[in-house]
């Protein structure tokens, strides 16, 4: 699949934003007194909303006819894209309610618990439905599995966690518990991604034989029929050399997981704490951007079978 920059930005930044918002709510409601204070919580929420909004705006650049984008919520009953859009839009009033609750200190402890849980769950559900946009497509084996939404959620939570660390560090220099939790998140996200890489390892989907109905003999493409690129070749024909894909997988593991985990582990004593977290955030973002690029570049749409691929 052709990796479109707008979609990569959309999924990575909005995922990180929802992750950050969820983690902020959970942290604030679980620990009674913490260094952030109301001001820090509000700042964290605002940054999260900024990331989410940036992502959503970026996603509209992918549309060939954006003036009809407002219609995108019509088919919530069947379409994950519509569901994602609706969840994303409805998140704003919920987030606003949460922030007003913090800002004005309204409602009692129970109300805070309820609205925190609601916001956090809503944020995670929105990342889940972003993942389901891809996971529900039977035409792309590399996406059509349960690891896709899991990876989206874990990577969003991981990036959100790293940004949260950075924000907290502006208020309080020693935050061992949070660093440990963040490291766990990185490790879990890394494991899920590594399992995914193995899962999609070798072609195992439909073949050129079932695609053409000649299931008892060899089928080879003789002539693809077009003399120049088509919508189909541009959108689905994107191919990267296998060696390059493997190299990029290592870069994902390095930037998204290894460097952030290492600086959190050994860097805390060596460097100023905000430098440590800044490195972790930047490296994490670079890694997840490459991860998302690979997510598209490695996906093989079954229409390629008609263009001569033997198995997808």
């Amino acid at each position: 699949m052709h990796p479109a920059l707008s979609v990569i930005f959309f999924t990575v930044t909005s995922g990180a934003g929802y992750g950050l918002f969820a983690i902020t709510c959970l942290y604030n409601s679980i620990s009674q007194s913490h260094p952030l204070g109301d001001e820090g919580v509000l700042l964290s929420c605002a940054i999260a909303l900024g990331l989410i909004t940036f992502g959503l705006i970026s996603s509209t650049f992918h549309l060939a006819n954006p003036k009809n984008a407002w219609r995108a919520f019509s088919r919530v009953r069947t379409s994950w894209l519509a569901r994602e859009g609706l969840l994303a839009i409805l998140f704003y009033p919920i987030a606003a309610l949460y922030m007003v609750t913090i800002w004005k200190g309204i409602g009692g402890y129970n109300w805070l618990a309820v609205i925190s849980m609601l916001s956090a769950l809503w944020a995670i559900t929105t990342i889940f439905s972003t993942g389901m946009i891809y996971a529900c497509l039977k035409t792309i084996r590399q996406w059509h599995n349960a690891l896709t939404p899991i990876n989206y959620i874990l990577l969003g939570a991981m990036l959100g966690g790293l940004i949260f660390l950075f924000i907290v560090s502006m208020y309080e220099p020693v935050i061992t518990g949070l660093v440990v939790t963040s490291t766990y998140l990185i490790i879990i996200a890394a494991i899920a991604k590594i399992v995914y890489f193995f899962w999609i390892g070798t072609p195992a989907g439909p073949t050129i034989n079932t695609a053409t109905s000649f299931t008892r003999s060899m089928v080879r493409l003789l002539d693809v029929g077009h003399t120049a690129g088509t919508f189909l070749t541009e959108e689905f024909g994107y191919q990267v050399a296998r060696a390059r894909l493997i190299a990029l997988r290592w870069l994902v593991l390095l930037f998204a997981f290894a460097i952030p985990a290492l600086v959190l582990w050994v860097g805390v004593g060596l460097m100023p704490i905000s430098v440590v977290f800044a490195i972790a955030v930047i490296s994490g973002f670079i890694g997840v951007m490459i991860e998302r690029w690979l997510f598209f570049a490695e996906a093989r749409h079954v229409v390629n079978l008609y263009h001569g691929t033997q198995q997808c």
Partner: protein
Amino acid sequence: MKLGLVIDLDTCVGCNACAVACKQWNTSGTTGPLTDFEPYGKDPTGVWFNRIRNYEVGDYPNSKTVHFPMSCMHCDDAACVTVCPTGASYKREEDGIVLVDQDKCMGCNYCAWACPYGARELDREDGVMKKCTLCVDRIYDENLPEDERKPACVMTCPSHARYFGDFDDPNSEVSIISRERNGEQLMPELGYEPVNKYLRPREKKNVDTYVNETNSIKAVKDWVNRLVAR
């Protein structure tokens, strides 16, 4: 009704007449134009609802060249419709034709991702998705003579490799021919239940290219030669 096509891979000669007729009819039809880019330039490209590819099936000498026209299969379980967030893509209750409402489409390509058969193409000029309409603007047109109320591709096919009709009617031409000749769905394992059926070439014995001279004297000579060789 369940309208669709049957395509006979035994008789299709790969002449591309159906694709040209389709383009000609539809570019001025309800979903037209089928925009072309650089039509007279070096790399002409554009929107087509029907594309023909060519395959070699089997190994020489038991091989055959198969010409393979593909347009929308008007699937019974059309994921292109269920994934469309705007409601622009829809499947008609009355005859099962899958269409795109150009006024609602936002050009997100999602339906094209969901289609296994490459039947949908974005018109980059209009910014909307376009696809085979099963010539909905022909088949119901009462201004046309009754025997011309067929898709343009079916009308034009010189080798009569394309049939159009109602699969819900067990006695229609398409039902009978796909029953008799085992009409196949493409990629049935994905579960889209494509309505269009493909008839595979009839199985025939391979005809030798070189016919060896055979007569009784030669047979005796061969036999003697083999004996001596031992």
